[in-house]
């Protein structure tokens, strides 16, 4: 719980009780509506050495995504497609609970769910990123660093990845005499759609969007829904031990489409100015 990093268990329990009582009255502790996001700040091009980069601040949650492009062998079974590799690390700077070291199960789930949204929506047309079919393709690394964590890392990381991909400039490689040469030119990425993930959590009987760390500490269950530009669903992930009612799932799905469209228009704005 971010606001109570020096507090005792008793204070945390009182805070939880306060939250549950507020939710019954239809209020959240930070004054938001159930379906509103915290302030979203997106800054692009912050790392000169990356082919694309973005810093996303969602309330106090802060994530940086950076893209590096290389050439390499394609994945097995996807011989004619560029390779997309995504990773996310929750840095030990992010909160007092993070231990340095290899990603734990939550960090792995995080990068896999973000990856799924981008991959399944075919946001990047990987067919256009093959150089010598079956042998050499573009390898696109998208690495995310969570700098400060205050809940909803899934959406913040997903937004950072999408913003970095939308605004990246890929180096142009060409094939000369069976060798791959970097021409020194750049091209825009082959974008087909913009996936946006929207995360809802269930606390008691209430369903809230964009949970803070405090709210996550009280949640029974979490649901992440990713939609693409035409409103179709491309990735879902339910997390945590509690259940969702069917009606809550259907309601969340509808909210995710509307909210996703709202955030997508912000992303489209980036592409024009970036």
């Amino acid at each position, binding site marked *: 719980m971010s606001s109570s990093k020096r507090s005792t268990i008793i204070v945390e329990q009182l805070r939880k009780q306060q939250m549950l009582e507020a939710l019954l009255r239809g209020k959240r502790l930070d004054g938001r509506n159930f379906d509103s996001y915290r302030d979203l700040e997106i800054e692009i091009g912050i790392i000169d*050495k990356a082919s694309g980069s973005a810093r996303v601040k969602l309330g106090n949650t802060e994530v940086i995504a950076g893209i590096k492009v290389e050439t390499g062998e394609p994945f097995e079974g996807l011989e004619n497609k560029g390779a997309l590799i995504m990773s996310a690390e929750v840095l030990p700077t992010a909160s007092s609970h993070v231990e340095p070291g290899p990603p734990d199960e939550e960090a792995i789930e995080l990068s896999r769910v973000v990856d799924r949204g981008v991959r399944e929506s075919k946001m990047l047309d990987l067919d256009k990123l093959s150089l010598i079919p079956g042998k050499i393709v573009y390898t696109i*690394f998208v690495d995310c660093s969570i700098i400060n964590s205050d809940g909803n890392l899934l959406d913040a990381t997903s937004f950072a990845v999408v913003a970095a991909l939308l605004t990246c400039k890929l180096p142009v490689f060409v094939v000369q005499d069976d060798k791959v040469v970097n021409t020194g030119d750049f091209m825009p990425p082959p974008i087909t759609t913009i996936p946006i993930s929207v995360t809802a959590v269930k606390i008691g009987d209430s369903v809230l969007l964009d949970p803070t760390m405090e709210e996550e500490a009280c949640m029974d269950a979490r649901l992440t829904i990713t939609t693409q530009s035409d409103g179709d669903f491309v990735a879902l992930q339910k997390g945590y031990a509690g259940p969702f009612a069917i009606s809550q799932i259907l309601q969340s799905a509808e909210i995710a489409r509307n909210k996703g469209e709202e955030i997508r228009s912000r992303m489209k704005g980036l592409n024009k100015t970036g």
Partner: protein
Amino acid sequence: MNELTLIDEHGKRSDGRGIDDLRPIKITVGVIKNADGSAFIEFGKNKIIVAVYGPREVHPKHMALPDRCVLRCRYHMSPFSTDTRKNPAPSRREVEISKVIRESLEPSLILSDYPRAVIDVFVEVLQADGGSRCAGIIAASVALADAGINMRDLVSACAAGRLGDNIVLDINDLEDKEGDADMPVALPNIEQITLLQLDGKLSSNQFNECLNKAIQGCKLVYEIQKEALMKKYFGNEMELKEEVV
């Protein structure tokens, strides 16, 4: 050959600096909400963020010391921080740099004030540009001050090096790779050296000149560190003062 590319006949270096010039440095204090202390430094093209957590309980418990605090330090580079992507797993280089950063900071702190506790310093390099260990130390010391850790003094750091016959201040990435010597130095302002490394060849005279130059660089950096802390803690008062004048 090196002299031709790295330093021209007017004494200008590849990035336009003179031999005694530092790259531009900007330090922002208190940038990570959850951390007990934090700082962000832009040092040339280096972009480094540092978080301090602690003093807090030691895990695992057997690491605790009965008479003083344990200082832990992690220097890590983000995969997108370098020209070719860096594998996110810690490299041997990062392990060594973590160690020398810790050892350069440790003498400045009064660790006996916090027995059985630990202070964690996390140095994350978001973009690397040569001299990242110095920049990391500079930001880490400011972040420790921001966390309210008892200290004798801030630790400042700066490298000097040799390009042909010239001893120059603050080696950048290109000069690090193509130059003849790189010597990072850290000193708390109380005139004690806490970091000294050398990568390259220096004669005895050149070594003396290099050390002096690096120490002068540290002193310039020290003022910038103090200013950054003043700005966070007494920013409003500084403005008031100016208005009065």
